[in-house]
């Protein structure tokens, strides 16, 4: 009896997980992405200052250095010095100098109760405002991850300096991540749904429906992506839409560009699946068209969906950044990494990378996000595609 082993059936997901675990880079990417999404979700808590906090007297303040050693070189609780702005009377540039007269210790879990400092914490802020009002949910939070021990409120800690409006770049990066990191996922989901519906119609019914859809996809792909995307977003530009609507508009624009490839691929798959024995058998047993599509054909394309999602997400993330960079994407006061870089572009020519390097950090954030999504995509492809399994 002992040498009889129970044979365990392996589902698609369990095989995929086994395969995925063999990809060390993809696993690291998953962790990094997880951290980035967590930071974005809890941006109000992690960022030391509120989202639209501007300060005309502190533009382009260099990053605050956090000291962990005191004057004698011993380890102490982290503290910072304030920065003082003077104006160079020859160039009229502001020069920031460190004022070492007084050390301000950093504090963890600071409460700031100012009317602008409170925020709606993460899972609740996903509920639309009118619905929150109607239900009477008003959970204001005042806790921030870190801050400075200073009752006057004049001393501020800017881990990545400030931008042209005097906003905290570190905080802006986190708030921008909310848009930059989700737009790719949402846009690719929408694109895949449209692509699957259109490709499904074309592949299943064939005939003139197929012809019309294919022609349409072909025409759409004949116009260069960037220019089509810019033209599409320009339609909504003169409307001065509120930022949540603009967010939706960008998702729609991105998915309009991207559904063609999915539609073609789904159509191709369906054409071959349609002739397989199990489809013919289902038809012979009297199954309806919608039942065949839903029960027999769509599940076959699951791997394909996961793989194409992972390929499309980084692409859309990049596209959003380009769009916002050109000024046709996310509009202020909302922010995204592309929009932040468009500010950086306006000020790069004046001083160069060395003098104001911190306003370029959104580029690094885009880089990390796209890189990790690509790595994760590689891992997922190997996990779900039988051909590339090791």
């Amino acid at each position, binding site marked *: 009896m002992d040498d009889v082993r129970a044979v365990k059936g392996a589902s698609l997901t369990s095989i995929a997980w086994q395969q995925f675990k063999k990809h060390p880079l993809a696993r690291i990417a998953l962790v990094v992405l997880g951290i980035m999404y967590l930071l974005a979700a809890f941006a109000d808590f992690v960022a030391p200052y509120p989202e639209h906090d501007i300060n005309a007297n502190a533009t382009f303040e260099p990053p605050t250095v956090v000291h962990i050693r005191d004057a004698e070189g011993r380890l102490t609780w982290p503290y910072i010095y304030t920065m003082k702005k003077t104006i160079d009377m020859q160039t009229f540039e502001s020069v920031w100098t460190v004022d070492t007269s007084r050390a301000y210790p950093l504090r963890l879990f600071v409460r700031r109760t100012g009317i602008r400092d409170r925020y709606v914490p993460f899972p609740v802020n996903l509920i639309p405002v009118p619905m929150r009002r109607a239900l009477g949910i008003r959970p204001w939070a005042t806790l921030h991850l870190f801050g400075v021990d200073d009752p006057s409120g004049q001393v501020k800690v800017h881990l990545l300096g400030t931008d042209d409006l005097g906003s905290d770049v570190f905080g802006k990066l986190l708030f921008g991540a909310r848009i930059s990191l989700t737009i790719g996922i949402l846009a690719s989901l929408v694109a895949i749904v449209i692509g699957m519906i259109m490709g499904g119609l074309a592949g299943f019914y064939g005939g003139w429906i197929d012809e019309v859809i294919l022609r349409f996809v072909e025409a759409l792909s004949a116009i260069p*992506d960037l220019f089509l995307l*810019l*033209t599409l977003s320009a339609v909504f530009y003169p409307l001065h839409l509120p930022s949540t609507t603009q967010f939706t508009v960008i998702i729609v624009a991105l998915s309009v560009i991207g559904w063609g490839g999915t539609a073609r691929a789904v159509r191709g798959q369906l054409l071959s699946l349609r002739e397989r024995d199990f489809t013919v058998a289902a038809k012979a047993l009297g199954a309806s068209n919608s039942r065949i599509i839903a029960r027999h054909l769509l599940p076959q394309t699951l791997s394909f969906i996961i793989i194409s999602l992972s390929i499309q997400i980084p692409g859309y993330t990049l596209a959003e950044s380009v769009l916002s960079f050109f000024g046709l994407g996310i509009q202020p006061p909302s922010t995204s990494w592309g929009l932040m*870089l468009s500010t950086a572009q306006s000020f790069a020519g004046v*001083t*160069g990378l060395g*003098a104001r390097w911190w306003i370029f950090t959104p580029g690094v954030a885009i*880089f*990390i996000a796209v*890189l990790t999504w690509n790595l994760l995509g590689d891992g997922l492809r190997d996990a779900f595609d039988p051909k590339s399994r090791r």
Partner: protein
Amino acid sequence: MLRYIVRRFFNLIPTFVIATFLAWAIIQAAPGDFASQFAFDQVDPNKAERIRALLGLNQPWYLRYLYWLRNVVLHFDFGTSMTSKASVTALILPLMRNSMILLLPATALAFAIAIPIGVYSALHKYSFLDRVLTVFSLMGLAVPNFFLALILLAFTVGWFHHFHWFLLPTGGMTSTAFSSFTPIHKILDVSWHLIGPMLVVSLSSLAFLSRIMRGEMLEVLSLDYIRTARSKGLSDRTVNVKHALRNAILVIVAIIGGTLPGLVSGAGSVEFVTGWPGITPLFISSIFAQDVYVVMALLTILTLLLMVGNLISDLALALVDPRIRY
């Protein structure tokens, strides 16, 4: 072959018409038009309406599309720019030329570097250098074009601040005293301005191209006839070059057409950042000004270029690959 070309060519016509109609519909869907900006003129309240009538903007949009299509097809006339009042063709042609000056060398450079890299990586699969190149191309895929251009710009300025002379220009295509230069000096000046944008454009497509080349080469190397060739006792070099590379190159030929849109788009954001006087800066400003004919002309020409590029690469593929029948 001729019949194939003719058939392919006629296939392009409906695609072209649908694509331009789509573009036209999208542009017209935007609220307001070029004349809207004069709607609140204090002196002449009817100014907007007059301009609208003058430019024919009061006619239905689909009719205007037909007029536009007729003029483009019959006279190659893309209309008159509403902002600069110049003929759109005259406005665009020099900019098109500038864009090509950037795009063609960048494409050539990208392919010239990507093919050897891809082949090397495939032949030395999982070697140290292959892994390094893989990491680099993954990183290259993740950097937005415009960010790379920004870094270049910042580097250029930083260099000037430090050494007080320009290693690379900070932007544009020519120096300020360009018109007084001798012809040779002019070429040198443009080439100097070209270096930065060209490197950025080709670097960003390099990653993608070398990955494709590597994958294709690996695919070919795993085929049976390669094993047969090796077991016949042919030298590695003969097998790799004559049997494998030649077949893998076919794919590159086929994808040249397919990479054009990516390259044009990629070059677009680089043009925008480095101030290269190509079509993208004009496109952006025309979009904001709702200068419909300029936007339309650029979209049309790019679409045409793309379709012709695809056609040419298909034809080239049909020429070099004896297995493709037409």
